[in-house]
């Protein structure tokens, strides 16, 4: 007597979303995202001869390097992290369902929260200072970032109680510092692929040198998401739940 996975996954998502998308968190993260929008709006009014390239460039630097990774870290690591910290994971874990369903439910929950939280300020910003090509490019790049970082940080939240600290160190030290040292190291950072996507779609070569092709970007993203889900499932199966 088991229900279809779709039903159970949806039931878990309905539980996880309100737990991670607390009002304070959503408002704070939206506010961070909207700050540049407000600034851009005033700048645009004060000076209407703005340069076109700036939008994509600014967005790529601010959004892809700082804003999106941090917002994804906060929400995605909270999905399983909160369940573990509050010791309520047992209410999902001790049920006659495959553990992959829990992994999928957490991952999808973070996507469902992150996509609106991130795209609202992104669309507004692109609308104010960019053109349509920029908007599609930045949205695609943002989506790739959400999926890739989301899978990684969902897993991180399950593995360690201090996911935020390790995530910050990863973002600042690995992606921000080491990733910039050499081309080879750069390929091991997610931002290489998100910036490549933006560079290709928005046709903005100034963003990154030698961008990867879109095919590579998509393959890498899908592989990362799959790896994140498999690792999460495997870790859930081996876990000692308390």
């Amino acid at each position, binding site marked *: *007597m*088991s*229900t279809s996975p779709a*039903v*159970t996954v949806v*039931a*878990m998502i*309905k*539980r996880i979303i*309100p*737990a991670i998308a607390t009002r304070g968190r959503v408002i704070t993260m939206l506010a961070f995202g909207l700050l540049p929008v407000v600034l851009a709006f005033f700048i645009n009014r004060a000076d209407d001869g703005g340069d076109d390239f700036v939008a994509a460039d600014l967005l790529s630097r601010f959004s892809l390097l700082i804003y999106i990774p941090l917002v994804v870290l906060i929400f995605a690591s909270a999905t399983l992290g909160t369940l573990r910290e*509050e*010791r*309520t994971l*047992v*209410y*999902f*874990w*001790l*049920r*006659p*369902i*495959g553990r992959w369903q829990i992994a999928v439910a957490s991952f999808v929950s973070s996507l469902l929260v992150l996509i609106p939280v991130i795209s609202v300020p992104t669309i507004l910003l692109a609308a104010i200072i960019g053109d349509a090509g920029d908007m599609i490019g930045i949205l695609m790049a943002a989506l790739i970032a959400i999926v890739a970082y989301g899978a990684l940080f969902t897993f991180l939240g399950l593995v360690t109680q201090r996911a935020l600290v390790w995530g910050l160190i990863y973002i600042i030290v690995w992606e921000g510092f080491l990733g910039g040292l050499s081309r080879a190291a750069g390929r091991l950072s997610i931002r290489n692929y998100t910036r490549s996507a933006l560079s290709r779609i928005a046709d903005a070569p100034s963003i990154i040198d030698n961008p990867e092709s879109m095919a590579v970007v998509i393959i890498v993203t899908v592989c990362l998401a799959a790896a994140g889900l498999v690792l999460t499932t495997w870790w859930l199966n081996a876990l*000692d*739940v*308390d």
Partner: protein
Amino acid sequence: MVVVDRISKWFDDVVAVSDVSFTLGPGVTALLGPNGAGKSTTLRMIAGLTSPSQGAIQVLGDNPRQSAEVRGRIGLVSQQEQLFSEQRAVEFVQLAATLNGVGDAEAAARSALQTVELDPDDLRTISTYSKGMRQRVKVAQALVHKPALLLMDEPLTGLDPRQRLKMTALIQQLGAQGICVVVSSHVLEEVERLGSSVLVIAQGRLAAQGDFHAIRQLMENRPHRIRIRTTDARALASALLTYSGIHGVEVVDESELLVDTNDVALFRKRVAPTARYVDAQLYEVQPLDDDLESVFKYLVGR
């Protein structure tokens, strides 16, 4: 329904459970022991939340850690208080029903809440609930799929007396329905009230097992101390001392004496006739260590 075969569990170099074996059938079993004795660890291993370092556990014929089917027939009332507290009770229990594959999850949730005397139509969230109500919500989510095995870790802790009475009654009722209910506790009075079979765990080992009264019987051989209030303590004292099983009598004052005996059966038979013989009234005959608490202390060896 549960077969525990020589399990041990250690964390780093600390032994939590050591070489414990038992089997459980339908009805209520109390898992008794001091804090840190390994009760929770044992329950967690039975539920499959963690695996034994050594030995094997079979629940309903299968390994609980691997079989999803077995998981669906276990209900667990865990010790931690945190629930999904922004939800209403009925939503929380309904989620449990859905994940357990119950057909009409909502109906099942409502009926489980009614079983624990909570209102399914309550609009408040669980965060506004008292400790006792939360405890009952946890019981409801464990019952909603009609499990064959119900594991309850300290379900009586934190409840006030009235709530404890109700919870005890519910546990008895579930046991009578043929569910295998395992209740861990260190609140002894309640276990006594459950009137169940008992597993005593102390220092990670199984210290005693069996019917509560049988365990008590085993304990009859140890020294007992009884307080007697009477009208003539001295006369009764010297009369009682003539029995060989009674090895000490302490006269506290004119109306009270304490009797130490190794043969409590003899004492129980003889106390009334002896009092009548010396013409002393008995106002109280009170065993001072006949409760489970003393049995427990005796087993734990402190």
